């Protein structure tokens, strides 16, 4: 995928986007947090799927959720299904080390919008933010 230099994902337009990072690995949480901050976002970061679901049950909603697949307590598949069952309309993007097509397909079927194999890159975030902005434009026009 070839993208411009953060062409469609300026820090200003991203400021109002709410983002949640869900991953049990502290290193990955730190990395994803910093990647998103690079784009002007201020993500909330949690350690497993249950924490993400609990937040939603408390009434917190997010424009974007980056969801790991393998996590203790509640994994990414279970959390994604639970969030969708509760009516979450967030863009949920799976970011997993389980890269086989069948594993990614199973994760997608839980209710993801997109699924990427780790590691996360600037291009992936740029793509996601473009998609988010497109969805935003569509909602405005309808």
């Amino acid at each position: 995928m070839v993208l411009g230099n953060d062409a469609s994902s300026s820090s200003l337009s991203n400021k109002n986007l709410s983002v949640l990072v869900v991953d049990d690995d502290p290193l990955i949480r730190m990395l994803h947090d910093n990647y998103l901050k690079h784009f002007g976002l201020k993500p909330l970061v949690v350690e497993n799927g249950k924490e993400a679901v609990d937040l939603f049950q408390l009434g917190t909603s997010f424009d974007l959720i980056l969801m790991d697949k393998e996590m203790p307590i509640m994994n990414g598949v279970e959390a994604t299904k639970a969030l969708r069952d509760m009516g979450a309309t967030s863009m949920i993007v799976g970011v997993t080390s389980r890269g086989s097509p069948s594993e990614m397909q199973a994760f997608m079927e839980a209710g993801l919008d997109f699924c990427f194999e780790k590691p996360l890159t600037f291009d992936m975030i740029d793509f996601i933010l473009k998609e988010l902005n497109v969805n935003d434009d569509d909602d405005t026009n309808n």
Partner: protein
Amino acid sequence: MESSHLRQQIAAMRQSFFDEEILDGQFCQLERLENRGNPNFVEEVLTMYFRDSTTLLQTVEQEIETDTIDLAKVDMMLHKFKGSSASIGANKVRNNITKTRQLLEEGNLEGAKLAFRELRMEHDNLRAKLEPYFQQQLRQVGPVETATRPKGSDHA
């Protein structure tokens, strides 16, 4: 002059990591995250990585040397390790993790033990190469001095 020589040394060290395929392009992504507000980000990430990886490798080694290996547990640990290694651009380490996991999956325990030893070697080699690289970078930055106004120079 000395500063220029040091910069060249650091650049050469960095290039060697890619030439030897110890690191891949993902490391460059990490470097892009460094900024004025976070000047030691890469080093912080790598310190965290090696702190966790050292413990993990010890645990895996103990596990695979037992008579009754918990294969699911070892696979899960190596799976996580693969994710963090890929995320910092540790190319050879990641490849060796994949090889070890594959051999375990195939039931080739002796092969997996050999592959794991290679994995440990690559991991230790990566650390041995990165430590002097960051030390050289510190030398380049030098001691940080905070600018202070001379007394009596404040103007309204």
